[in-house]
């Protein structure tokens, strides 16, 4: 845990904000006792709230007394621990969301000039606040799904993630009803990192935030209760490819530093606009940084981790990760493209266009042949990253506003969609509940067994497909409209073609749920387990699903108010 903990603290206190200090010892050190760094705590409120709660949560975890069993191998935590941890997580993220909302309202009402704090390491401007708000709302909804458990007491996480899958030790832990309560501090650290990520004012802070958000996710990916091997494979893949992506980012940062002599985004921006002709070293550095970010958003050709990780991770984590990481990483992408390198767009356009088209096409085409609902949504997530990129690439206020709208609506619908998947479990022929039923075959006839759940999922799918009266349609219209207006109509045309093709795989799930009969549990499904059915839980997931359903429909039917909000923020930025 300390590997995560220390960078988070350093990021918070702004110790990592002297990039020159790291390489140039001649820089005078501010004498002790003087107020060396001016920190605007109110602007940092949401991040401090979440990371502080993460630290507190870790301490609670450590302090809780555990009861050893007879052979001293299992240390079972008290039952109240998970309640406390869940409460700490939920309350702190909700508080962060409220603080971000308050900041957003304040910024929206005023001139909205950026606040630079912690010696320029943190930029709090409308973009930061919006992304923090979106991350906090999605994380809050995600936490509801994470904290939920079935009436049988089954949650989504392994009783002991460190146990060898299938071992006696694991079985024993399961029987004793152990639960993995460190999920909550991990999620809080990830959320804190995601909220700091778009706020980062220099490349070091950005990198630290990237790691703070990534490391807990690598761990969480390996914690699925069922199909442990798949989950551990997901964790390892995510870690290796994520480290690869981080390395690109870091490497790019080094090149940029070499070219401009600074790690501060604003100074890099000034160097970029002043440099004619463009320094190739700078360009290479920026492209490498973009590659690191493309890894995080899952853009082709840096997407290969996505399907495996989405499938293997515990479903509540998949939803949380799919929504929040995407929002945060796109926030940084927007920051880098809009605030730092506007003068560079012509040079970067071929890269962005290629990645955008590839992402849409590959996500859609491979999505067409998926037989697993989680994998299908993973490819759908890739395609959506491409759609958002068309808005990002258009480099206009409309494009920015459209991308922001898209990020929030897609994130919320994603949490809801994975929430539904988390509720659909296998029932074997004896009527026992097992793991999640993610095979498309197992979803056949779900509309008859669990009509409300299937109907809700259908609405999320329609939103992903971009059918009018759902938020997905408004979002697509916003980004494709911006692309058309800025002369990127080929991108919009590819996007529309991909939307048409992607409709097939969304519709196929609806066909399976509503128009097909349940398969014969003994015959056709011998290998995959049993048919899927909606399970009864404590009801937290249903709350999350309900809220995201409400957002999906309200922002689909009356999107005007929210669009004018994102437009107002975009105007402040450009």
């Amino acid at each position, binding site marked *: 845990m300390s590997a995560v903990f220390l960078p988070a603290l350093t990021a918070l206190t702004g110790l990592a904000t002297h990039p020159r200090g790291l390489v140039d010892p001649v820089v005078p050190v501010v004498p002790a006792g003087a107020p060396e760094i001016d920190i605007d705590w109110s602007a940092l409120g949401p991040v401090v709230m979440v990371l502080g709660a993460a630290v507190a949560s870790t301490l609670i975890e450590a302090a809780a007394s555990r009861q050893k069993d007879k052979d001293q191998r299992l240390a079972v935590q008290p039952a109240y621990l998970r309640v406390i941890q869940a409460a700490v997580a939920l309350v702190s993220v909700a508080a962060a969301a409220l603080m971000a909302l308050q900041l957003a309202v304040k910024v929206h009402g005023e001139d909205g000039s950026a606040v630079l704090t912690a010696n320029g390491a943190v930029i709090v401007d409308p973009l930061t606040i919006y992304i923090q708000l979106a991350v906090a709302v999605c994380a809050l909804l995600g936490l509801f799904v994470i904290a939920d458990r079935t009436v049988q007491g089954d949650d989504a996480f392994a009783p002991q993630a460190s146990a060898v899958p299938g071992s006696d030790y694991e079985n024993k832990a399961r029987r004793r009803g152990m639960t993995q309560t460190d999920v909550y501090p991990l999620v809080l650290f990830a959320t804190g990192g995601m909220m700091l990520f778009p706020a980062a004012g220099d490349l070091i802070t950005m990198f630290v935030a990237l790691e703070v958000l990534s490391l807990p996710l690598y761990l969480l990916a390996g914690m699925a209760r069922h199909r442990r091997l798949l989950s551990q494979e997901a964790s390892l893949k995510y870690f290796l490819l994520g480290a690869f992506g981080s390395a690109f980012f870091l490497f790019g940062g080094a090149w940029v530093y070499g070219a401009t002599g600074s790690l501060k985004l604003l100074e890099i921006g000034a160097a970029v606009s002043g440099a004619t002709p463009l320094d190739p070293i700078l360009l290479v550095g920026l492209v490498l940084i973009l590659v690191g970010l493309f890894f995080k958003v899952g853009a082709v050709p840096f997407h290969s981790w996505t399907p495996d990780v989405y499938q293997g991770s515990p479903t509540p984590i998949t939803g949380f990760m799919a929504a929040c990481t995407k929002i945060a990483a796109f926030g940084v992408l927007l920051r880098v493209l809009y605030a730092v390198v506007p003068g560079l767009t012509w040079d970067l356009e071929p890269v962005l266009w290629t990645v955008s088209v590839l992402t849409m096409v590959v996500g859609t085409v491979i999505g067409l042949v998926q037989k697993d609902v989680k994998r299908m949504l993973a490819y759908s997530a890739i395609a959506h990253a491409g759609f958002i990129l068309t808005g990002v690439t258009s480099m206009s206020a409309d494009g920015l506003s459209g991308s922001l709208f898209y990020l929030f609506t897609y994130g919320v619908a994603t949490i809801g969609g994975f929430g539904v998947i988390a509720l659909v479990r296998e029932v074997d022929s004896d009527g026992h509940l097992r793991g999640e039923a993610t095979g498309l075959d197992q979803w056949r006839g779900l509309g008859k067994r669990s009509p409300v759940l299937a109907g809700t999922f259908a609405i999320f799918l329609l939103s992903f*497909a971009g059918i*009018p009266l759902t938020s997905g349609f*408004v979002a697509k219209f916003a980004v*494709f409209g911006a692309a*058309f207006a800025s002369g990127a109509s080929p991108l919009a045309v590819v996007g529309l073609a991909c939307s048409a093709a992607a409709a097939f795989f969304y519709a196929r799930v*609806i*066909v399976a749920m*509503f128009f097909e009969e349940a398969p014969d549990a003994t015959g056709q499904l011998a290998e995959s387990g049993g048919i899927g059915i909606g399970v009864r839980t404590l009801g937290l997931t249903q709350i999350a699903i309900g809220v995201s359903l409400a957002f999906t429909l309200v922002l689909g039917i009356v999107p005007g108010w929210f669009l004018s909000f994102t437009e107002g923020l975009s105007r402040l930025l450009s």
Partner: protein
Amino acid sequence: MTMQSFPWLTVLIAAPSVGALIVWLVGGPVRRYARHIAFVWSLLVAAGAVIMATGFNSGGGVQFAERYEWIPSFGVSYAVGVNGIGLVLVLLSVLLVPVVLLAAWREQSSPAKQAHYAALVLVLETFMIAVFAARDVFFFYILFEAMLIPVYFLIGSFGGPSAKKAALKFLLYSLAGGLIMLAGVIAVWTRGPGGEQGFMIDSLVGADWGSVRSERLIFLAFFVAFAIKAPMFPVHTWLPDAAQAAKPGTSVLLVGVLDKVGTFGMVTMCLPIFPAASRWAAPVVIVLAVISIFWGAFLALGQSDILRMIAYTSVSHFGFIVLGVFAFTETAEIGSAFYMVNHGLSTGALFLLAGFLISRRGTQDMALMGPGLQRTTPLLGGTFLIVGLSAVALPGLSTFVSEFMVMVGTYQRAPAAAVISALGVIMAALYILIAYQKIFTGPPREDLAGTADLGGRELWVVGPLIALMLVLGLYPKPAIDVLRGPAAETVRLAEYDEPAAEAVEGAPAAPGAALAGAEEEGGQR
């Protein structure tokens, strides 16, 4: 509150959805009466529409108009209002819904399924009324797409064994068309006048689209979507599959009303908003329309499945409607608008009668239904013959009036197309009479002796449709009066900017000049 200021359309749009909600929510012992509630509700909606229609002023252009800002960032308004064409199509929709609900009275096995079916039909009614009343292109597009969803479930959940596939094919065809149209809608926003009313049809009429090429591209985006919806050759293949798999009641709404959205879109959007591009495309569209007439009729001849046959006859009829729309004469425009209504009545009745036949005989194969049913079920045979002949446009029935007007109007601009399409009528007589012969004439099979004739409920289903066709056939004036205004307006708008060819000829806007110019352009391609 005067007749015109009451928000008729909004109330009519909202009412069926409220009804659907009630039908869905009633449970327990009341559930058995869900279909009764739905039927009475749809009658009330129809009554409301008729009352509204009495306040319609035939010379007054778009009426009962309302406009509220909806998504100001995109210039989208909730804007409704009807001209004559919209009015008659709204009336057709509200008439067909109770008929369909009554026809489906015993179709579903359980009260829950009955309620579900009735509720979906009511939801669809909301979209049908709204789409014909929409005066904002974006709002129209939203309805155009969203109405697919209830139809998709109506086909997929209640249809026959191949329904799943047919529903998916229907959805994918329509979505593909819809997304092509979305490209057009986006282009209308980015290239058009913009502003807070940037999607209102009224502010788009006469807009400058930048270049000839961009106007043509945007026109094509809309036209292709409408052609798929209509459906025209060569993008019609989803319709026979859908009609064969769906319940006949669903097909009535699908073919009778929903497909009209395509031709309605051509009249209210393509022609007025993109006049030059419409004239440019007219020669090709007319050729495709004539091919549709023959292709549909020809394939109808070869079908053994009665529902597939009716679907193909519709492809043929839609050929006539599109031919009339793209003839750019007042007579043809009135004719094709009137044709839309008559086709809804005639084909609707044909589908419903086919449904009654199928429920009696347990098969959709015409060869297995008969022969000789005429003796045992004279009422069924008689109504089938009348309705069938209405599809052939028998004088005295309303279809005759509209088909005649389309051909006369087309003759003024494209005589060749009119003459060739007249031959399509002969083929129509063939496919209907052969079907009648197979099922109803000849020596009766002994095991068919006990087949029940039309009952009271079934007579109430087809009776009003036949009565309306007779009334409008003998006295079409009220309908034509209502349609004359918008038809003249469409023709005027379609020639909004004088074509270049006219300047060359130096002739005033003589009939045929615009089309001749368009043909020249087309020939040069």
